[in-house]
């Protein structure tokens, strides 16, 4: 026999109350002087014969208390079969809060069904029972730890604030935690989770505790079939700072988590929430495809780009967003050595010419580019940090005079968010570069030597059309603007092993690094294995020259804080200069705004939401001045760790059910029916009441007999 509400059994101790009352009243007896002691003794002699009856009366009173307690505890007779339960033990609800629970039609997702079933489940527990709620979210945590049910309504209300979080669920890890908590106690564990194979991975290896029985119930609400389940796993723009009206290339990675191939799935691009373009993609099950989309921004400022798929089994992972800063112009400062006055002694001449070409206005006879401002100016004197502050990109090449002071100024410039292009042409002194820029941390890779080949010779080097690292120069691999493999470089720098944190963006055809990038502070240093000029190469006559130039300069200008971050990563925005915003707050979807903390940083004020946000999407920081405001878009992209809805295969399911002794149900009604069917005995509640009434009648009869 067991009890529906065994916690009431503590009240059995109240059974001593009649005994205590007996002795208390006896102790507090009324003193009376008595004369008729003879009569009293004769009566007492008869009463002693009734002592047994008195004892019986006391026992009856104790029994009344005990049976009353038993009535409240609701005795039930049932065996301890796994399916037989319904109450009386510590209950733990393990709720799968991973985003795969959002699979299904809106309003009827697996999560909606799971929550409704869980509400019914916890609402069936009466007052005084103990339960816990373990939520497998980000991070997995106890929402309720061994809480007493006050009212079923209150228990249900505790579930209201919960919603799936952007994470994957591991029942095995959750059960390890939960079973440690339940050690030494009779426990019922209700697993409210979908049948996702990833969720149930390694469950059969969970070590079950010895001792009191732990019973498992699995409430698995039906979600959606896994037939069509694509996800946008990644969205990257080639640069986070691009020029207005200038092509920006977006790379959208789409993965097919479904069981069937998907043909011509449409990927929509949205800029600032408005439709921009659409591309089709076909993906095989378990495969990924990258869709490359060109996006152009008409207006300078902050913009948000979203890649979106049509609705499928799991809508949550069908979109990804990225933030981008569109610049009206790219200010390029080329450091020149005044001692070297030759036209092609540095990149300045070439870049100034390129700038002029690229800034031809509409109406000119043959504009090379429709828009985009490239303002190139040379810095003749040795600049300090203040002189560099206004430039988006600073270019250093063989025509620049390198001094320790300049290295310090460059370091401060880069740390403050500036972009530095180191163009290692054939006139540089590798030793001086390695000696000055290397110790300052400004060299992504050491320059080993300068290689040369006579113009027209056969031992030139060419860029590779594949093997691009990252997206910065990846646009060049499509050959839309010319085949970079047809480039011929007759002088080059042999770069050594990239430093820690450095990335090779492009390589020569022989695999040697051509462009190596490294973030330093808030800025970026881009080291090119060639000069930005038209000496010793054929760049000037190739169509890809200007795209290459733009991409190189944009890659270098992509300094500052990132506009696309992962959930949990800090959201930062750097204001350069005085008169920064008075307040900044971050919003994402319908979530309440979060205020960004501000602190002084190099050259300005850094606004930061250190904890970041816990969910993917297109977020924005609203910057407020006294007389104006501005919105800065951020893309939050999480890992698609829970997109695979592949269900447990029957064998794994059988093993898990066997290991845990699972009782499965797809709804509360089914679970309730199974719980009730598990009763092999009957509830003794009415018998307990009958016994109580009988004992009460006996007590009253005994009392009456004495009076």
């Amino acid at each position, binding site marked *: 026999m067991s009890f529906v509400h065994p916690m009431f059994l503590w009240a059995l101790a109240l059974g001593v109350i009649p005994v205590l009352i007996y002795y208390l009243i*006896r102790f507090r007896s009324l003193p009376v002087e008595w004369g008729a002691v003879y009569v009293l003794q004769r009566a007492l002699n008869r009463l002693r014969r009734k002592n047994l009856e008195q004892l019986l009366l006391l026992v009856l009173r104790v029994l009344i208390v005990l049976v009353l307690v038993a009535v409240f505890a609701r005795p039930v007779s049932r065996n301890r079969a796994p399916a037989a339960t319904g109450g009386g033990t510590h209950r733990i609800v393990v709720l799968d809060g991973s985003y795969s629970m959002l699979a299904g039609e809106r309003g009827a997702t697996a999560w909606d069904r799971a929550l409704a079933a869980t509400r019914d489940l916890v609402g069936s527990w009466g007052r005084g029972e103990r339960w816990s709620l373990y939520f497998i979210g980000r991070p997995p945590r106890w929402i309720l730890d061994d809480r007493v049910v006050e009212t079923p309504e209150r228990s249900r209300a505790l579930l209201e604030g919960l919603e799936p979080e952007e994470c994957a669920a591991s029942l095995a890890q959750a059960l390890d935690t939960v079973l440690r908590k339940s050690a030494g106690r009779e426990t019922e564990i209700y697993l409210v989770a979908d049948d996702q194979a990833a969720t149930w991975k390694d469950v059969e290896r969970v070590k079950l505790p010895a001792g009191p029985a732990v019973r498992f119930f699995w409430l698995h609400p039906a979600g959606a079939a896994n037939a069509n389940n694509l996800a946008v796993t990644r969205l990257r723009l080639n640069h986070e700072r691009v020029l207005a009206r200038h092509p920006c290339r977006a790379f959208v990675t789409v993965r097919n988590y479904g069981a069937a191939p998907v043909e011509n799935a449409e990927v929509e691009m949205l800029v600032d929430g408005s439709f921009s373009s659409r591309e089709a993609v076909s993906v095989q099950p378990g495969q990924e495809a990258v869709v490359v989309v060109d996006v152009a921004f008409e207006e300078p400022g902050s913009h948000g780009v979203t890649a979106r798929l049509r609705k499928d089994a799991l809508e949550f992972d069908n979109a990804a967003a990225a933030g981008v800063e569109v610049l009206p112009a790219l200010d390029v400062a080329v450091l020149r050595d005044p001692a070297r006055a030759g036209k092609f002694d540095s990149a300045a001449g070439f870049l100034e010419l390129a700038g002029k070409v690229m800034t031809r206005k509409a109406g000119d006879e043959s504009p090379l580019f429709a828009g985009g401002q490239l303002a190139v100016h040379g810095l003749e004197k040795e600049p300090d940090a203040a002189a560099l502050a206004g430039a988006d990109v600073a270019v250093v090449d063989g025509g620049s005079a390198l001094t320790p002071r300049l290295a310090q100024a460059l370091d401060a410039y880069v740390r403050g968010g500036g972009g530095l292009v180191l163009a290692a042409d054939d006139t540089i002194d590798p030793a001086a570069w390695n000696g000055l820029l290397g110790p300052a941390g400004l060299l992504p890779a050491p320059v080993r030597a300068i290689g040369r080949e006579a113009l027209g010779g056969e031992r030139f080097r060419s860029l590779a059309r594949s093997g691009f690292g990252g997206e910065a120069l990846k646009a060049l691999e499509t050959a839309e603007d010319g085949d970079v493999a047809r480039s011929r470089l007759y002088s080059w720098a042999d770069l050594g092993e990239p430093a820690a944190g450095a990335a090779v963006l492009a390589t020569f055809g022989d695999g040697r690094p051509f462009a190596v990038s490294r973030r330093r502070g808030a800025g970026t240093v881009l080291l090119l294995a060639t000069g930005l000029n038209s000496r010793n190469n054929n760049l000037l006559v190739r169509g890809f020259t200007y795209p290459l130039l733009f991409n190189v300069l944009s890659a270098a200008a992509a300094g500052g804080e990132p506009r696309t971050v992962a959930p949990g990563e800090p959201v930062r925005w750097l204001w350069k200069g005085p008169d920064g915003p008075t307040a900044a707050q971050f919003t994402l979807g319908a979530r309440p705004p979060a205020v960004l903390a501000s602190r002084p940083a190099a050259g300005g004020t850094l606004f930061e939401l250190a904890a970041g946000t816990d969910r993917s999407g297109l977020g924005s920081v609203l910057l407020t001045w006294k007389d104006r405001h501005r919105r800065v878009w951020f893309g939050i992209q999480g890992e698609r760790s829970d997109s695979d809805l592949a269900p447990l295969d029957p064998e794994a399911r059988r093993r898990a059910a066997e290991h845990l002794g699972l009782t499965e149900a797809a709804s509360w009604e089914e679970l309730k029916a199974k719980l009730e069917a598990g009763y092999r005995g009957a509830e003794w509640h009415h018998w307990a009441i009958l016994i109580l009434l009988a004992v009460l009648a006996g007590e009253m009869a005994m009392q009456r007999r004495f009076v």
Partner: protein
Amino acid sequence: MPTPTPNRTAGPLGELLTPEARDALKHLELFARRMAQGLLYGAHRSRRKGVSTEFDHHKLYQPGDPLKHVDWKASARHDTYYVKRHIEDTALTVRLVVDRSASMLQDSGGASLYLQASRVAASLAYLILNQRDLVGLVLGSAEEVFWLPPRAVEAQLVRILQALASRGAAGADRLEFCLRSLVERGGRLGVIAVISDFTFEPDAVRRQLSRLQAQGHEVILFQIRDPREEEFPFSRWVRFRDRETPGREFRVDTVPLRRLYREEYQAVMAEWRAWARKYDIHFVSFQSSGSVSAVLAEYMAFREGLLGKR
């Protein structure tokens, strides 16, 4: 002979015999139901044959008989000398035996049992002395047994009242001793009035009472009941302290005991009544809350009725 009057009517003595009680008792008389035996001439028939106006029988003359008692008329008719015998009227001797054990201190009826017993004794003494009979007093308890020999003098009432008033109830019951002493002392036959609550072990007392009755005394039992002792109005745990035995206690749950006690109380009373009826002893029982003079008046009327039937 003037009516005996206590010197004081106020204070303890006056409390025992109030003027109202005296007025109520003034017209009552206690006659002996059995043959009285006394030295004084009085209103009660005596076993002694002697001087009286009431003829009893004739007896043959024996030498030595006073010639003045010869019934000459009867002797002439039968030619044999007969002597006239008359029933001698004598004074009644009443001995009042008052139980002054500590159990008589029960006082839930407004007056303690002992006070009511004293009032009964005082009233009887007044009544008896008022009809020129002899009255004595025995006050008995384990603490002291007080004897006041029967007298018919006026001061006897005062002595009795003083004895009753000056001695309170105390100690264990010695009624059996008192009665045994009466048996052993002998003395003139008369009335033995025993005034007590009779809530004690009865066998020894009954043995002595029956001996007195056998000797020729008339025994009257006055039982005074305490309402609380009779009703037993308790419904909780009570620690009963024995009045007669210091330190003796009974801690009892009175709820189951109440019915048993009441039954036993009535049984004890019934046993006394049955025993008294068996020995032709009057058993007068009344609650301490009642009026003593009314009880005595009722009893005297009852007794007069009995005597009248004879």
